[in-house]
């Protein structure tokens, strides 16, 4: 079955947990024992309604503080699709969690409290989804019941949001505005009579008709070798297969390919998936490729079509979201993990911080602190083969690993 990955962003009071709870409850995805557990927890805390955040806030610390700290993954399905929601906290100190959730999602749901309209946090949520090029954005204007289901309020919020979108550099991003009340269940799964002026889909209705495509499927064909398969059995004595996942485009038997970094050329001989061979495999497939010629290939190498070469450079410019307590500073050394390649790198400079509040540039004094986003130039110890993030998500992104702590310290999107 098709799997649609969704990220949600919103602050504590926007009713994000209630919305997710609604989706689960109204699609009958919560089993009786789970509803019972939620009822019990809600009662213990003296609430007279079901607090669905108990279904999603899985850690003791989160339940104690009544906030979402970490990304939680929530699963539900309809007859049509499987859904995975990455539920992320919305405050500025959790920017890194939001970026993490958005990195694997095709759809983002941005919640707005109808009473408050577009606020600073909305700017940040939109900016992050814009930066990460999340394809479909649902702007859910929540708590419509508290503004008397007013079409005017909805339209005002819509035009405020459109003003944000006017400066977007991602023209293909699809924005859909839906007026909802998560608490009452209006326009979440079921259509409501309360807003006859709204003719569009419910949130679930909209999700159901979206065409699923892996977030890393766009762009030209890139095949990063994960590992080499050499069975050394009698039957497959000379077999040398290259295992990896196709990112972008597709591979067909007979395709002329170039191996990077050696620039050696060959042709695709076979495409294996388990014990069968295929003529063709599309982006998203984990396969094993054999080549017509014997070429020395190891993990970290990349196969591309010979007429679709990526850039090969030792110096890159990228937008970096910083995720570590230790600040990013010029001169610092980090390990860059780009596809299956690991390269030592040195930070050349931090050009400016991009304020997620307004999407404008601020002074950086050449540093990036936790949850800040900036434009960074990086020198590499050896060349990587990359595309811009805009052209190919998988081949245009990387993580920075602190060689002292091994922590994933940041994520980069190559210009």
């Amino acid at each position, binding site marked *: 079955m098709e799997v649609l990955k969704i990220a949600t962003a919103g602050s504590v009071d926007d009713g994000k947990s209630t919305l997710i709870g609604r989706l689960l409850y109204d699609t009958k995805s919560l089993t009786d024992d789970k509803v019972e557990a939620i009822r019990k927890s809600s009662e213990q805390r003296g609430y007279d309604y079901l607090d669905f955040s108990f279904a999603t806030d899985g*850690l003791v610390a989160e339940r104690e503080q009544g906030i979402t700290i970490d990304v939680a*993954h929530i699963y539900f399905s309809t007859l049509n699709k*499987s859904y995975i929601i990455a539920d992320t906290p919305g405050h500025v100190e959790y920017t890194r969690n939001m970026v993490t959730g958005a990195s694997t999602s095709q759809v983002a749901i941005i919640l707005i409290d109808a009473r408050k309209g577009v606020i600073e946090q909305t700017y940040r949520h939109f900016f992050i989804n814009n930066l990460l090029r999340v394809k479909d954005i649902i702007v859910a204007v929540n708590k419509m019941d508290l503004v008397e289901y007013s079409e005017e309020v909805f339209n005002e919020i819509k035009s405020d949001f459109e003003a944000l979108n006017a400066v977007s550099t991602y023209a293909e991003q699809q924005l859909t505005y839906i007026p909802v009340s998560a608490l009452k269940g209006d326009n979440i799964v079921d259509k409501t009579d309360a807003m006859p002026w709204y003719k569009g889909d419910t949130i679930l209705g909209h999700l159901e008709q979206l065409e699923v495509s892996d977030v890393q499927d766009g762009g030209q064909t890139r095949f990063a070798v994960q590992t080499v398969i050499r*069975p050394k059995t009698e039957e497959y004595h000379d077999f040398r297969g290259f295992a990896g996942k196709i990112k972008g485009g597709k591979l067909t038997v007979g395709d002329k390919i170039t191996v990077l970094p050696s620039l050696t050329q060959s042709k695709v001989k076979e495409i294996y998936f388990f014990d069968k061979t*295929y003529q063709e495999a599309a982006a998203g497939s984990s396969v094993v490729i054999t080549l017509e010629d014997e070429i020395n290939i190891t993990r970290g190498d990349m196969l591309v079509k010979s007429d679709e070469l990526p850039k090969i450079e030792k110096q890159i410019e990228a937008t970096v979201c910083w995720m570590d307590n230790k600040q990013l500073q010029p001169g610092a050394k980090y390990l860059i993990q780009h596809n299956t390649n690991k390269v030592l790198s040195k930070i050349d400079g931090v050009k400016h911080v991009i304020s997620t509040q307004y999407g404008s540039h601020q002074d950086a004094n050449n540093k990036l602190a936790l949850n800040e986003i900036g434009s960074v130039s990086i020198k590499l110890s050896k060349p990587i083969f990359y595309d811009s993030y805009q052209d190919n998500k998988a081949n245009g*992104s990387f993580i920075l690993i602190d*060689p002292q702590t091994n922590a994933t310290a940041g994520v980069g999107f190559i210009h």
Partner: protein
Amino acid sequence: METVTEETQTKAAISNPSVLEINALESEAIYIFREVVAQFENPVLLFSGGKDSITLVRLAQKAFFPAKIPFPLMHIDTGHNFPETIAFRDKLVKELGVELIVRNVQDSINEGKVVEETGKYASRNMLQTTTLLDAIEEFKFDACIGGARRDEEKARAKERIFSVRDDFGQWDEKNQRPELFDLLNGEIELGQNVRVFPISNWTELDVWSYIEKERIEIPSIYFAHQRNIFVRDGLIWSADDEVVFRAEDELVEEKTVRFRTVGDMSCTAAVLSTADTIEKVVSEIRESKISERGARIDDKRSEAAMEKRKQQGYF
């Protein structure tokens, strides 16, 4: 003319049907397996004989074909396993030609490292952690692949695909590495290890549907059968196995039941069911009103039972 062209195209597609169909979850799991083998020196697959670890074995086969699975399987045996599970395990390992490591909770008890629980709810489930951590140290495993899924339980919903554990096997839930795109950071220090969960994003129904589609063999206790049982706290317990404590006033009756999860006998309850084929099991799961872990007494100990166990080094 246009119609003719269209027809010709359709025919061409049928005569050449060899375009690989993608199952996104399967493809993701295979990708994860390959990252483990590439990034770690000494991985092991934690095999319990349950449906999730059996699914893992199939995915591992697919990830490395035509080569054999390039790591051993390890079973932490509580000594309270269903006999069907053990028989199944031994048969599978023989067919695959992979190495099986078994470490016993009984040995940890005999060595005085853990103390057997007593009473009505006694279970060896918690005791497994010590045996597991000792085995990781004994074999110097740096990556332990497990079949846990995020949909099982709310603490597991927060779990990473590569989940770093310290020297003591502890999970630091508040300080986890962010996982972006499909970039998995396997850098660790000596003494640390990583728990890897390739089917993190699968639901119970995904697993059962996969078993059905792939025709994967699973132990017979997953299917409906006649069994002597007794009921306690609304859960159905096997009455034929002496490791399950039964009070004298708890009456034994024969019912048609099956097991939805297969763990330690002392903490795994059965469900009433007539589903005796994989197709029937799949449609039963689809209709189910009770979650999978609703029949696991180990999770009922407290709201944070799983989080606490994971902090101590549990699977």
